């Protein structure tokens, strides 16, 4: 598999949902593409539209959650938005899979976890129940082996357990980290081309977060899948992403390879986010904060949506009236800010 081929590209996606007060634009003019075998991170605050994008790719938006107004989502040379529900079912869980934020509520409480993994295998790989169960046991065993221990020696805690005992457990009998492993096993069982991880570690402890993220990293190398990492945790992004897109109020405001973004953020919002993080390498007396709060989707300000909170824009007339679009300012670097270096030259 060539590493640089584009696997999925989202073009000019608009999603909105209607309320009694009018249409709310959840996602506006979002475009990005994910290369094979790479990790693309979508970062942003709650409610900025990250999850809506993830659900749009899966075509999982329910009636109350929004409607795709326009745009294209090209995967494998076909537009996912034009597929029938039946064709889409063949892609879901097979080529594109998803793991969710809360592992506890994402597993069905009445079925053994092994059966839940096996069902996906049976469906997409045409295996009988027995083979699928054996596969599930094997996959879960692999995921439980400590990621730091590449020799494949299981952690002592787990060697004591009889083979397959994890698969025979019900979700409530497992810890949060173990539940998330089960979710990952379900998602990775069919060796998908793209894994969408929607805040995969938000509900977990810091130590378990690392384990889960390392696990995803390992799986990515083994299977060669791409990952769309949806998160609000810049620490996670700095460790695991290849390309990062920062979202603010339903738009992508900056998109860049990880190293460049962290070294030199162009958009004032990105800068604010990075300054508000505690860092070990810089001694700061006090962390910077971004003043104000995220605007309500119904009352987005005119012009650049960030201008009321922006150190430059809140005084600038153009920022208040004209919304900047996302432009490529350097090869591979996109930003939507009138004051970004090189923005107006192109």
């Amino acid at each position: 598999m060539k590493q640089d081929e584009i696997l999925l590209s989202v073009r000019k996606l608009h999603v909105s949902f209607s309320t009694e007060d009018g249409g709310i634009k959840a996602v506006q003019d979002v475009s990005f593409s994910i290369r094979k075998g790479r990790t693309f991170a979508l970062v942003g605050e709650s409610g900025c539209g990250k999850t809506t994008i993830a659900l749009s790719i899966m075509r999982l938006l329910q009636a109350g959650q929004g409607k795709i107004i326009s745009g294209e989502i090209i995967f494998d040379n076909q537009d996912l938005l034009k597929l029938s529900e039946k064709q889409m079912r063949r892609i879901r869980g097979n080529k594109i899979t998803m793991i969710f934020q809360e592992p506890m509520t994402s597993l069905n409480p009445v079925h053994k976890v092994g059966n839940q993994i096996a069902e996906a295998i049976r469906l997409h790989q045409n295996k009988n129940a027995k083979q699928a169960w054996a596969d599930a046991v094997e996959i879960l065993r692999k995921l439980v082996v400590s990621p730091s221990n590449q020799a494949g020696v299981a952690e002592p805690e787990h060697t004591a357990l009889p083979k397959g005992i994890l698969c025979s457990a019900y979700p409530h009998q497992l810890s949060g980290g173990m539940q998330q492993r089960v979710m990952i096993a379900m998602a990775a069982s069919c060796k998908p081309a793209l894994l969408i991880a929607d805040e995969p570690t938000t509900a977990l402890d810091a130590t378990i977060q690392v384990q889960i993220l390392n696990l995803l990293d390992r799986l990515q190398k083994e299977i060669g899948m791409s990952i769309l990492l949806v998160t609000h945790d810049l620490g996670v992004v700095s460790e695991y992403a290849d390309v990062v897109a920062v979202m603010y109020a339903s738009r992508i405001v900056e998109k860049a390879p990880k190293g460049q973004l962290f070294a030199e953020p162009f958009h004032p919002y990105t800068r604010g986010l990075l300054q508000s993080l505690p860092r070990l390498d810089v001694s700061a007396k006090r962390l910077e904060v971004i003043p104000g709060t995220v605007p309500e989707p119904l009352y987005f300000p005119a012009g650049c949506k960030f201008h009321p909170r922006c150190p430059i824009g809140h005084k600038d007339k153009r920022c208040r009236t004209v919304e900047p679009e996302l432009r490529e300012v350097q090869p591979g670097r996109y930003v939507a800010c009138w004051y970004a270096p090189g923005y107006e030259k192109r």
Partner: protein
Amino acid sequence: MRGAKNKKQKEQSHERKRVGLSYGELVWRRFTKSRLNLVCLIFVLFLFLLAVFAPFIANDKPFVIRIDGKLYFPLLRNLQPSDYCIFLAAVVVLWHAVGPPSCFRKKAGGLHRNTSGLGLSVAIVSVGAVLIFVFVPRRFDAVDYKEMVDSGKATGAIFAFIPYGYARTELASHRQPPSSRHWLGTDDVGADVLCRLIHGSRISLSIGFVAVGISVVIGILVGAILGYFGGWIDFIGMRFVEIMMAIPVFFLIITITAFFPRSFLNIMIIIGVTGWTSNARFIRAEFFKLRKQDFVQAAVSLGLPLRSILFRHILPNAVAPVLVNATFGISSAIFIEAALSFLGFGVAPPTPSWGQILSLGVSASGRFLWWLTLFPGLAIFFTVMAYNVVGEGLRDATDPRLSKAA
């Protein structure tokens, strides 16, 4: 010391295989907290066994008899296809309730107890029933074996515990109060009341179970579709359900039974077809709640087909209130059947039914025959009460609000 320690370790490792209690075990534990629940459950099981083995308990045909030096087995010969069907169904139900015998059980860590097992059982019972009706001949011999024994033509007869048939007519001894010959007396054609009560339990229970089965199936299908899809489908569907609920069901049933032949099957279908609305409402409410849950979305994101999402992933989480409702449904179906038979719209006379025996209590001459009223009345009373207590116990045991207290 060492031995004790080893033993302790062994126990621990044994315990390790079972992590926590399953939902079923929790419910069972809470259910059996109350002695009354347990007593009523045992009574329900007792009725179940009584109904299944009725022909072996009360029958005028002997198990074995010797005529002219040859052995005959009249009781087995006279078993009807419907009896065999009941045996088959009972075995399958027991298989589900208690689990397969250990020799058939898969080893630990093995597969699945999934819902397809239920489908398989239903298939076995229905195919089996068809085969039985095709291949088992309907035999009936009208020989009076007791008379043969009395007159010395036959010897060595072993009769059932209650040696009377439910369809016996013996006008010489009709309307007799309880005696040592007929423990609960005889009815207006001279049939033994105890025998008719035992055989009547079959009618009551099978009407209860089949009618509730029909109403649960319809309720689940309708409720699942309304609850999962919501929107205008739900709006129209619920208005239809409300219209159905506004109809006084009992009078509808009386009217319908008046138009159709008085058969056992018709009554089951009519009670089932009119009783699904509450089940549909329960299921709809549960599906409404569950369809937004993460695990449902996760199931969709795995590309599972709608059938699997509705019935494999949502339904098992939604079924508890319907199971509780079903136990109440059984008692009310039994009650409706008894009422119908009492009014003369029920099953036709040679077939025994509790309500019909009850209606004989006041004879044409106006004499009050207390044994014909009291005993079937008690049978109906205790059965309905037992099912209600079991249903209430189940409802409390499955109620999550009470789970902390238990």
